């Protein structure tokens, strides 16, 4: 397996694990921007992190080989 594939697999696995943020389970503090409970702010940031990971995937792991669609039978 190529190092790039290993790194991307680890990044995907890490983001999946990071969804289980047990550290913020029983507290609302700190309130981000003075009103957003930390768990809500964490998961909002998680959505941004997901978008960043998708951007990385599309940049370095885009399945170019699938774009060749010449074999159409019908």
């Amino acid at each position: 397996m190529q190092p790039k594939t290993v790194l991307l697999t680890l990044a995907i696995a890490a983001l999946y694990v990071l969804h289980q943020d047990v550290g913020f389970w029983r507290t609302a503090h700190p309130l981000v921007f003075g009103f957003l409970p930390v768990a809500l702010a964490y998961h909002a940031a998680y959505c941004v992190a997901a978008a960043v990971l998708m951007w990385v995937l599309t940049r370095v792991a885009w399945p170019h080989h699938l774009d060749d669609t010449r074999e159409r039978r019908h």
Partner: protein
Amino acid sequence: MIPAVLVFTYLAVVLYIGIFAFRHTRPTDREAEDYFLAGRALGPVVFLLSLFGTNMTAFTILGSAGHAFANGVVTFGLMASASAFVIPLTLFFVGTRLWALGRRHGFMTSVQMFRDRWECSHIGTVIFAVQAALLVPYIIIGVMGGGTALRAITGGFVPFWLGGAVVALVVMSYVFFGGMRGTAWVNAFQTVLFLSFGAIALIVIGRGMGGFPSAIQSLLDSPTTAPLLTRERFSTLTFFSYTFIPLSTIAFPHITIFCLTARRMSQFRRTVIFYPLCILAIWLPCVFLGVAANSMQDVPRIAQKLEARQALAVATPAMPAEERASLRRQAAGDDVVPIMLEQYAPLWLAGLLGAGIMAAVMASDSQILALSTMFTEDVFAFYGGKARFGEHVQVQTGRLFVVLLTLVAYVVALRAPQGIFDLAVQYAFSGYASLSVLFLGALFWKRSTKWGALAVAVWTAAAVIYTATIPGALAWFGLLPVVPMTLISCVLLFVVSLMTRPPAEETVARYFAR
């Protein structure tokens, strides 16, 4: 009155969009592909907005706020952030491959791909039957939601039967005339409404409440509401289970089919990047407002809900079931965002909300079209109808199917209690998550076989019936049934495939050649 006028204007606009799309359909030698897949030519913006809109339902605006009203901030992590990660990931890995195979081999449904990939025919029909059976409750719920929403928005002036009929007629018309092109444009328009609604509602309500910091502080000060700002009342295992639910998305027929409509594969790039941000933009305001509504104890309708919730919390097992059900209905928070808008927003914004709600409940359009596509391709065409009667008749059959399906859904919606279909939809999510294993097997595991696929389809159908009829079934170790259902599907595909003969090498080579 103003909200009702805005909602009916909205209905007229979506009808126009559908008909407009129909008038701009060019004659082509691929009539079926043009009607069912918009000629595989949707542009990047419509593809992104429509794919997102197709996956948003009434639950997104009303249900998410209601869930957050009762359960607190956990709602966002359960339903939004898990989807923001898993759905784009499945679109990236599975959606792009489906698009490429559709282009290369002319597939219009996932069952066509399964039949070719695993060299099977009737097993494909079994998969079609399971997929279709899981989709029907969504369509019925859509019609019911239309009737309920229109009745609520017009203050009871439009009764449920008429509201359901109007919404069903509008949806049926633009699906009938516009096919995928009309449906995609309407969904794109609806997504713009969703996105606008969340931001505007947050700003207006925030100002009306005198700023969110004071509202949140009042929740923190009360021992009954402070836990809503944490997740201390929620099990970590249940929270974990919810990460399996978004696997269902890629197995939904309307999503699978929609993946085939992109003009270029590069359109998936922007879609997977922006999908998590769209989820953030819609869900965060709805969840936050749902939680913040708990601080509005001076508003009588909210105070009644809080009292009912308190009564449920201290209820003894001796409380009669009817009284308990009545308290649950009173405590339900699906209408907290409309109540907040009524309290703080001008009438025009309430009208915009009404249109947003209508947009959400009309998500059944793509499901109706998907079922019509599946029926005409996987049954009508596969069993000789297309060869015998031609492609034009096939498309007309698809249109007739749209009309019949909408009529049946409407009649059932009038006669059956909504609770049954709410429950069916809940279990259908687990069913589709379990079926997602078929896509992973077909696209990523050369050794998978048709018998493994049959085992997954039969297991999924049996597990959905089992969990829906026996409370607590498959809820092992505190996990939701979706986890064992999906994992057992993986094991079945693996074991049964290894025990049976794989497809011919040349067939496998067509799917795995680089």
